[in-house]
């Protein structure tokens, strides 16, 4: 599998078909006498920003920490929990049970739900 072409930056969907972000990074296990193995994918603005600037990623991580438990570090998903579909990878988890959507939840609770009719 071509990791950069076929995994990195692909859309992720959760078990209910909700968009769950994109695969922002991949974690490889380096093995002696064998090719590297893909063990995790990362879904996080921290990983995404680190692809541009590590300093920017560290700065964002400090804000991200305030969004709740499980945030402040990139969210990792074991590779075996993903299945490939036509346009995306499907995750065998409900996104609401993870920390992936913490920013969405934070904005919904702090802003959107205070606007009448939302």
């Amino acid at each position, binding site marked *: 599998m071509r990791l950069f072409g076929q995994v*990195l*930056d692909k859309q992720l969907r959760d078990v209910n078909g909700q968009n769950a972000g994109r695969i922002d990074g991949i974690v490889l296990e380096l093995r002696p006498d064998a090719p590297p193995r893909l063990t995790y994918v990362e879904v996080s603005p921290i990983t*995404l920003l680190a692809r*541009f600037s590590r300093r920017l990623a560290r700065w964002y991580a400090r804000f991200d920490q305030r969004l709740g438990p499980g945030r402040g570090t990139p969210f990792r998903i074991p590779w075996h929990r993903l299945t490939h579909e036509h346009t995306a990878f499907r995750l065998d988890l409900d996104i609401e049970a993870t920390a992936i959507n913490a920013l*969405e939840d934070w*904005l919904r609770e702090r802003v*959107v*739900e205070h606007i009448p009719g*939302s």
Partner: protein
Amino acid sequence: MKKILQLALGIVTSVGGFLEIGSIATAAQAGAGFGYQLVWSVVLGTICIAFLVEMSGRCAAVSKHTIPDAMRERFGARFYAVPLIVMLGVSLLVLAAELGGVAAALELATGISIPAWAIPVLLVAWALLWYTNFSVIENGVSLLGLVTIAFAVGAAKLHPNYGSLLHGALPTLPREKPSQYWFVAVSVLGASISPYLYYFYSSGAIEEKWDESYVGMNRAIAALGMGFGGFLSIAVLVLAAILFHPRGIDVKHYQQLPALLTPVFGRAGFWLVVASLGVACLGATLEIALSLAYLVAQGFGWNWGEDLDPSKDARFSLTYTLLLIAAALFALLGADPLKLTQISMALTAASLPVGVLPFLILMNDKEYLGDHVNGWLSNGVVLFVSLMAGVLAIVSIPLELLGGG
């Protein structure tokens, strides 16, 4: 039967949604400054946007990807950041110009100045996006935009010289004021080939769950909708060429725009221009705000959709909210919508290759399009026009700013 209705609605909404402050103002400036000589720039721009809209609909129907979605996936985050940042910057100026256009129409109607209208226009645009769905935006506002057909009726009533008009459809070198000629030509191209139009269209196709059976209908909507839309732009150019050019009147203020129709329709002409400007700019404001929110949300893989409740896509909904607030600041601070339009349309033309070139690569990728990849004609036309617009813009913008003539 359902598809025929969809086709008719698609064409009608494309026509109704084609004109906005950019195309009205730049076509009027082209006609006022150069008579029929710049008709070719409207024709080229319309052909190019028709191809781009067709491509974006085909991309969505066949690959089930919107353009931002496919671009991030195909080229990666580091590359995607470039068109994202350029599009956000340039289109925010266009959004500010459109929102200012609605405020300008209200100023014409009431005499109350533009800054006083900034917040009410912001609230109306935001409420339409927040509380209604995609069909209301796409069909409702675009159908109201059919009022812009008044320009075509007005132009026909003035009996233009069709021979000269056809002659103007062929590109010619400027006879006078060369830097202004090329700058106006570039602004017309930028106004016609608005990237938000095809980004909006591809997201709409996904929202309406198009599949491969829509490829033919998509082609018809793009060709006829954009074709008739371009025809309306030419009508504005013709009106300015007949009414302004012989008297040496340049279009420097939006207050001059009602004079395009008052000689034909009298007082009703004034209200037709006000209604056209207000409705067309409101429609464009909604489409640009949504397009930019799509660009961000799809690029990051968030939940998105104008048909979802804002509580289901908070980041998407707050993105268009913030963009509208930023755009309204320009009107609130008294920025002149016409000057903003000129600058933003020329910058749109300058930035065209940044978005169009990766889109063309995508449209030639069999992994996404299968047997529906671009033919030589689509590739050739879009590549030629967007590169030409980009190069002309980069040359003519500094010359115009330096005041050469």
